[in-house]
């Protein structure tokens, strides 16, 4: 598990994950990328704020939970913070196992849990200014209140 400002190389990370372990039968990965368009507007950049200390703790907790649930040979979470450009990688999660389904399921688990627990907040900069991204798990009513709380406006 790593939290860093620098971009990372997905191929290199995956190669290191399995290097020297010929018991691994499958590697599943998910890479999140900065999208150029969000909410109908073009972004020039995206900045991730995070909670140093707690972020690392939460990622380690999520990873430990995956290792407890599935028979994994290796796992990896790399998450960036700071300013990023469209097309750049934000996050990589990868899991390796002797068994295909263990790798696939634990990979989906890691990114889903990380999305609801890891202390990151996206600020999207583009046409008209910047905007704090709303959490998707919020239901409609919550989303409405969220709009109220933030004013639902570019800041």
């Amino acid at each position: 598990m790593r939290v860093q400002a620098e971009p990372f190389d997905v191929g290199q990370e995956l190669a290191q994950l399995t290097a020297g372990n010929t018991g691994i039968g499958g590697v599943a990965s998910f890479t999140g990328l900065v999208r150029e368009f969000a909410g109908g507007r073009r972004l020039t950049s995206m900045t991730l704020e995070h909670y140093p200390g707690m972020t690392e703790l939460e990622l380690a907790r999520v990873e430990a939970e995956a290792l407890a649930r599935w028979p994994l040979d290796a796992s990896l979470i790399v998450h960036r913070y700071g300013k990023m450009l469209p097309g750049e990688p934000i996050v990589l999660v990868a899991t390796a196992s002797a068994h295909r389904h263990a790798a696939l399921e634990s990979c989906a688990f890691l990114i889903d849990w990380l999305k609801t627990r890891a202390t990151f907040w996206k600020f999207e900069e583009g046409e008209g200014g910047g905007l704090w991204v709303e959490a998707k798990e919020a239901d409609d009513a919550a989303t409405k209140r969220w709009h109220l709380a933030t004013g639902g406006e570019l800041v």
Partner: protein
Amino acid sequence: MKILYFAWLRQRTGTPTETIELPDGVTTVAGLMAHLGERHPAFAEAVGAGGIVRCAVNQRHVDRDHPVANGDEVAFFPPVTGG
């Protein structure tokens, strides 16, 4: 007690972090939020408008009935949006 604010809550309170003395009688996250609302009207307004403010005590996600004590590190933030 160290208080941290993140994302738009930080912008509203105007400070990323502050150190306060926990007043007598404040024993939970909910109580602390009411107290902080007196210091930062913008914080009270944000909480009152919808309550989608999350809390961590000593770097663990907690609910509003979680106890707080002097010496704790308490953080307030919107739902996370990483990944």
